[in-house]
């Protein structure tokens, strides 16, 4: 028994109130008494008893009426109602249950009757306890979901900030280095991206550029892509693989693309704990020799668009960086002509799906670029963004989309 559970006994007979009330008190209940349905309803609203034992037949509002008015109202806790009845027929039972009664008992007159009432009250208390446990559980759920919502919001804001910081790592679009023009397109799938691209002058005639796509996306991928962007700078800090200090003139050496890949592959080998690897294109332009050397570590084939010829894929791929320790990388050399263009797209472009699930595919990229000779480099990238946006149908992209476009002088 829940000690001190408040209980309201409603009966128009003073004897019943006296005898039964005394009995109920002796069982540990805190007993309220009412002599009519109206008085009971008044007490219920003020005292909120957990159990109501009501006589079925009363002048004015009877037990059924009281049941109905209780059930129609909003109560802070469930009120368990037992109807006292002289009737024991099925029809009354149904009528009482429909009105909202939980249990029935014939008015007790002897020890057996009291024992039955006691047992029925215990059953009622079990229901009340279950209800309370459920309430408590609900309250905790609500509290938990509130906390989750707050944590989620904080995480989203932090991701937003991280995304903005990451975009600041990107070079300015519309740049020209030693006459070589660069434009890019960058659409992260979430706030942060595993894609990264950049370009930089290395000395007075060399320009380097890269595109990186870290496998997977989200936070882990973006952390690796951000740290790669910090590493891949044309600074002789002893860490960057782009340019090395030399003891003799000209006091530096520019690392060939194949060596850059091998060096990164040594540095970023995956292990059992860390399974982040990446694909990458690294290119080195010699503006005075009008040549390009390019190495591809598993990115989609770069697309070369000669000024007066049709677009074609470059090279035949290569190992991604970080998954095969003994990987050997290759590069190809191209003598470019003025106006030739090079495009490097992350797989987020070719693998971007329309609403039916069909991928954009590399052929569509190639075909589009093939017909893009008359557009400026910036226009080509804008149009590509429009086309894949339209293909995808407006929703957020599932994978990061990045494209680097280069035009040779």
């Amino acid at each position, binding site marked *: 028994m829940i000690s001190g559970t408040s209980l309201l006994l409603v009966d128009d007979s003073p004897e019943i109130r006296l005898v039964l009330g005394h009995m109920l008190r002796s069982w540990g209940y805190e007993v309220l008494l009412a002599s009519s349905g109206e008085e009971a309803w008044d007490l219920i609203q003020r005292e909120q008893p957990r159990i109501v034992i009501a006589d079925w037949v009363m002048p004015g509002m009877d037990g059924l009426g009281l049941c109905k008015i209780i059930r129609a109202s909003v109560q802070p806790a469930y009120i368990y109602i037992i109807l006292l009845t002289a009737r024991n027929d099925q029809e009354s039972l149904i009528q009482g249950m429909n009105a909202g009664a939980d249990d029935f008992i014939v008015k007790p007159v002897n020890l057996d009757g009291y024992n039955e009432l006691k047992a029925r009250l215990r059953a009622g208390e079990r229901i009340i306890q279950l209800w309370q446990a459920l309430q408590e559980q609900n309250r905790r759920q609500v509290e938990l979901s509130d906390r989750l919502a707050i944590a989620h919001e904080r995480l989203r804001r932090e991701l937003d900030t991280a995304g903005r910081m990451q975009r600041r790592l990107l070079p300015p679009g519309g740049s020209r280095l030693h006459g070589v023009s660069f434009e890019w397109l960058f659409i992260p799938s979430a706030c942060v991206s595993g894609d990264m691209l950049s370009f930089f002058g290395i000395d007075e005639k060399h320009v380097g550029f890269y595109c990186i796509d870290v496998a997977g996306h989200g936070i882990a991928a973006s952390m690796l892509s951000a740290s790669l962007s910090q590493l891949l700078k044309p600074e002789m800090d002893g860490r960057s693989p782009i340019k090395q200090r030399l003891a003799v003139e000209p006091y530096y050496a520019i690392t060939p693309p194949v060596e850059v890949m091998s060096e990164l592959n040594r540095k970023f080998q995956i292990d059992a704990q860390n399974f982040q*690897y990446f694909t990458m294109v690294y290119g080195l332009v010699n503006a005075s020799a009008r040549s390009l050397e390019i190495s591809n570590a598993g990115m989609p084939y770069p697309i070369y668009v000669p000024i007066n010829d049709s677009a074609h894929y470059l090279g035949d791929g290569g190992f991604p960086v970080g998954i095969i320790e003994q990987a050997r990388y290759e590069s190809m050399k191209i003598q470019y002509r003025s106006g030739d263009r090079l495009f490097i797209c992350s797989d987020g472009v070719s*693998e971007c799906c329309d609403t039916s699930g069909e991928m954009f595919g590399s052929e569509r990229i190639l075909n589009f670029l093939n017909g893009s000779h008359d557009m400026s480099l910036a226009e080509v990238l804008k149009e590509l963004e429009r086309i894949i946006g339209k293909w995808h149908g407006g929703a957020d992209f599932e994978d990061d989309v990045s494209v680097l476009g280069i035009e040779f002088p």
Partner: protein
Amino acid sequence: MNLQDKTIEGILVLTITSPQLDYAFAEDFKLGVADCLRRGHERLVIDMSQVNFMDSSGLGALVSCLKRVGDPKRMLLCNVAPPVVSLFKLTRMDQVFIVYPSEQDALAALRA
């Protein structure tokens, strides 16, 4: 789980029943294979006939399984669909994974 396993003469044969081995499935796939390997299998065949798309996460998962097995000769692939073959070629993983046209061929190679 989009992974079915059977054992043929002591050799584990895993069939990927998802059409995509991608970012969404890669982690589960990796754990599923690791689970099977923990049961003591040292040689396995992965039937890829139902996989028509694999992304870099899927490729990473497959490499991680290979590293767990330790030897490409003990983890053979079969029924690899053209889009996956293209990805293997692009990433040179065709030099790493050993691919057979059918489950029977792969099983025969493992028995030899």
